């Protein structure tokens, strides 16, 4: 039998004591057993003794003695055993034996929760490119969304009873003129964000030479006037154009250019040729069909929302469930992309009154539910959380309260069978309630605080939003409380 190979990572919150004690302890125990061992330490000094992809690949098992979140994507498909650092110090022999015997493959089915982080999805995957684009777009979405929202508040002209009677700006007054301008500012932002998104998706696929083709192509695909049609192609067109541009540029890079012209290939030749090809393709090929398709889709969604009372609730529940299922993984991202896309596209097409807020509102309502649910459960059911889990739960709170779903990943990864259903149920409740109660999420952070840090229109100011999110949090917390085992 060949020599067993063990690799591992140790990390703790202070990064000076447990990290190294655990590493030393594991190394010593493994060497005594005659195994080959390499332990990476992620401490205050940074990463030391780093594992290479090849070492991870060749290892029989990966032992993670970590008390903080680390990047897990490297260990996809490997057998992974996660323990507390103190456990590795105390019982290193047992930890190693358990790992060799019982470690489960990371990234399989239910255990998928921890795989994907923002921009960290599987190298080169579809979602990695999409998320790269989204991460560059988000600041613009938020900035222009908030400015649009401020202007929009002013645009609702109310009667004496406070009912909204008309929408529009009275530009004869200075204030009205200012607000009208601010509204334009927001709309320009919404117009630019789609090409911006496409540019950075293409950048993620093929680097700088692809940006020009993707941005110009998307701008055209999204402009009804240029296309001579009814509507622009919106996000779907942006994704299509960005990928077309990205892969076209990757192809163009493969051509063996004569040495003489090589220096100008990435800055001139490829951008020129790809922009020419992509924009013509948009004009004469995909532009109009995409635009009609998007129009059809959004009109359908809006009709559905308006004509069937239950539709927003159902959409909200499904979107919420998707957000809670894999905590930043592909499903979560699909929901996020869908929500943002539907909102920005319908704003661009039908104006702010005609915009479809449902998917975006549901997404944002659900985003903080899993991490906050964990935290609440750790408060309500103290005896079911170990001290280390309580620390993780507190950090989940910190992340949840600013709208970062990923705070729940350590729990989802550790105990997917119990945690994922709890996350999904709570997130679906929050999404369904927010959508069903007619909340409109313009912009801000996806947590109960969103109603203060952001702009959310709702039947009862502040209360409706907080209520929707907290109900979801409560559901998640209770399910965790009833299913999680007591700590001995």
């Amino acid at each position, binding site marked *: 039998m060949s020599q067993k190979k063990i690799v591992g990572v140790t990390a*703790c*919150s*202070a*990064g*000076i*004591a*447990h*990290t*190294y*004690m655990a*590493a*030393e*302890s594991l190394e*010593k125990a493994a060497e005594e057993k005659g195994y080959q061992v390499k332990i990476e*330490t992620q*401490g*205050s*000094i*940074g990463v030391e003794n780093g594992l290479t992809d090849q070492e991870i690949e060749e290892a029989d098992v990966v032992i993670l003695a970590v*008390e903080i979140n680390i990047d897990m994507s490297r260990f996809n498909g490997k057998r992974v055993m996660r323990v*507390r*650092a*103190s456990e590795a*110090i*105390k019982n290193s022999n047992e930890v190693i034996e358990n790992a060799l015997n019982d470690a489960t493959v990371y990234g399989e089915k239910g255990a998928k929760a921890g795989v994907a982080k923002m921009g960290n999805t599987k190298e080169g995957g579809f979602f990695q490119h999409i998320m790269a684009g989204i991460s560059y777009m988000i600041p613009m979405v938020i900035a222009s969304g908030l400015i649009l929202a401020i202007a929009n508040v002013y645009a609702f002209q109310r009667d004496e009873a406070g009912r909204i009677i008309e929408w529009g700006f009275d530009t004869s007054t200075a204030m009205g003129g200012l607000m009208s301008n601010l509204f334009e500012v927001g709309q320009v932002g919404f117009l630019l964000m789609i090409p911006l998104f496409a540019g950075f998706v293409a950048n993620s696929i093929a680097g700088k030479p692809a940006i020009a083709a993707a941005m110009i192509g998307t701008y055209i695909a999204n402009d009804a006037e240029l296309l001579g049609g009814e509507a622009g192609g919106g996000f779907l067109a942006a994704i299509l154009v960005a990928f077309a541009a990205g892969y076209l540029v990757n192809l163009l890079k493969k051509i063996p250019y004569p040495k003489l012209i090589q220096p100008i290939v990435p800055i001139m030749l490829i951008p020129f040729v790809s922009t020419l090809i992509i924009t013509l393709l948009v004009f004469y090929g995909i532009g109009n069909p995409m635009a009609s398709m998007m129009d059809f889709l959004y009109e359908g969604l809006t009709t559905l929302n308006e004509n069937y009372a239950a539709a927003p609730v159902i959409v909200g529940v499904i979107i919420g469930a998707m957000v809670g299922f894999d905590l930043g993984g592909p499903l979560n991202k699909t929901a996020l992309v869908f929500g943002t896309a539907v909102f920005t596209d319908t704003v661009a097409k039908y104006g702010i009154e005609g915009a479809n807020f449902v998917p975006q509102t549901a997404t944002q309502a659900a985003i903080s539910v899993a991490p906050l649910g964990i935290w609440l459960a750790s408060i309500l059911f103290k005896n079911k959380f170990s*001290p*280390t889990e309580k*620390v993780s739960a507190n950090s989940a709170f910190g992340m949840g309260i600013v709208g970062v779903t990923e705070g729940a990943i350590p729990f989802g990864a550790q105990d997917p069978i119990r945690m994922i259903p709890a996350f999904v149920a709570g997130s679906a409740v929050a999404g369904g309630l927010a959508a069903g109660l007619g909340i409109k999420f313009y912009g801000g952070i996806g947590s109960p605080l969103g109603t203060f840090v952001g702009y959310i229109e709702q039947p009862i100011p502040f209360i409706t939003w907080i209520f929707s999110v907290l109900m979801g949090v409560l559901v998640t917390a209770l399910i965790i409380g009833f299913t999680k085992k007591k700590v001995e």
Partner: protein
Amino acid sequence: MINEIFDISQIEFNSDVKTKDEALQFIASFAEEASVVKSAKAYYKGLKKREKEVTTGFKDGIAIPHCKNKTVKKPALFLMKFDQPIEWESMDDKPVHIAFALAIPEGKNDDHLRALSTISRALIDENFVNDILNASSKEQMYQLIKEKLSN
């Protein structure tokens, strides 16, 4: 190198301290007197917080209280020997007699931090731990640690 994070004046024998809390307070004020931390109170709070997250009680009567805090001016090691056994919720439930206290500044100073991490690793070495436990004078302890750090 070693002189910058540790010297013989940073070893102290104490006969008054009876509880973990007193021990941490003692370490903190000692660190302040040694000009390693700006505020004993802040360092004490940091140590307490770290203990709350996870106990630093190790085995065989050794503990390694530590924290990373902006009150820490420079990385340092203190070695405390307590005459009275101190309950420290250690891994083997044995009371603690010796504390390796680490002060970790925020930001990075790799060489010094690396020296501190060497001390953490050294505690896994049973021979080293036994030698430390059996050492009776500050001078002996100092030599042991110096040897370990210069390896």
